[in-house]
């Protein structure tokens, strides 16, 4: 039996998620925003893996899903950066404050 309770892992995930969320919504540099999102995904992965070991029905599925999530995150990071660069070429900035195309 583990000496570390499930809630500790979950709490860690929660803290990381909150940090990521806060970063994603406050940081002005788009790259950092993307990284913060990655952090949030990681926090979710921790949960997945935690439950795969300590959940009601421990099974390998949680880990498999974490893998999928990592794969998708990687794809997302790649596409995100591509978009970022495209945008940067157009507007000469990565400052998120100035990206308000939604407004018009």
């Amino acid at each position, binding site marked *: 039996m583990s000496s570390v309770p499930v809630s500790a892992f*979950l709490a860690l995930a929660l803290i990381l998620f909150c940090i990521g969320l806060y970063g994603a919504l406050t940081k002005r540099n788009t790259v950092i925003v993307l990284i913060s999102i990655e952090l949030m995904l990681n926090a979710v992965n921790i949960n997945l893996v935690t439950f795969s070991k300590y959940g009601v029905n421990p099974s390998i599925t949680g880990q498999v899903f974490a893998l999928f999530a990592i794969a998708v995150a990687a794809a997302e990071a790649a596409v995100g950066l591509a978009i970022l660069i495209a945008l940067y070429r157009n507007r000469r900035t990565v400052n998120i404050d100035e990206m308000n195309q939604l407004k018009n």
Partner: protein
Amino acid sequence: MTLTGEFFAFMSLALVAVIGGVLLLNLTKVIHMVVALVFTFVSIAGIYVLLSAEFVAVVQVMIYSGAITIIMLFGIMLTRHHGEEAEPKGGGLRKLLLFLGVLGFGAAVYLGIYDLNFEAVPNTLHENNTEQIGISLYSQYIIPFELTSVILLVALVGAIVLARKDDEKEGDKE
């Protein structure tokens, strides 16, 4: 709770991860932030090991600490103007609001999880972990696995197209 090695390992890893996160928020130079986050990613990999997910841990180190961080650094290098995070203007209220929101959210979720404890079920995840994952991926999750590859392909192609299209456009302009 006994002070076992596992616990000690968890605590230190968690500490490093959180510190990395906090540094992400508080450092001023973008590069530093990314580097700070590498610590977090690596310690998360450590957490995976504690959770008997060696394969995932390795993947974590490779993809996050390796690939994604490198991509991000490239991104910064390709785009950066000022190396520093410019001081936001007038966003104080929003930040405060958000901080409260995050705090509230965290508290609410913590309320839900703090005394969560499942009946411990003996499992064999740590034995031949990689093999188990492989078997699972190629039997039960074969279709998602294939779809993932499609996604990666699409992302690859998409990223290239996005990057190239603008080149052509600029080329047209010039």
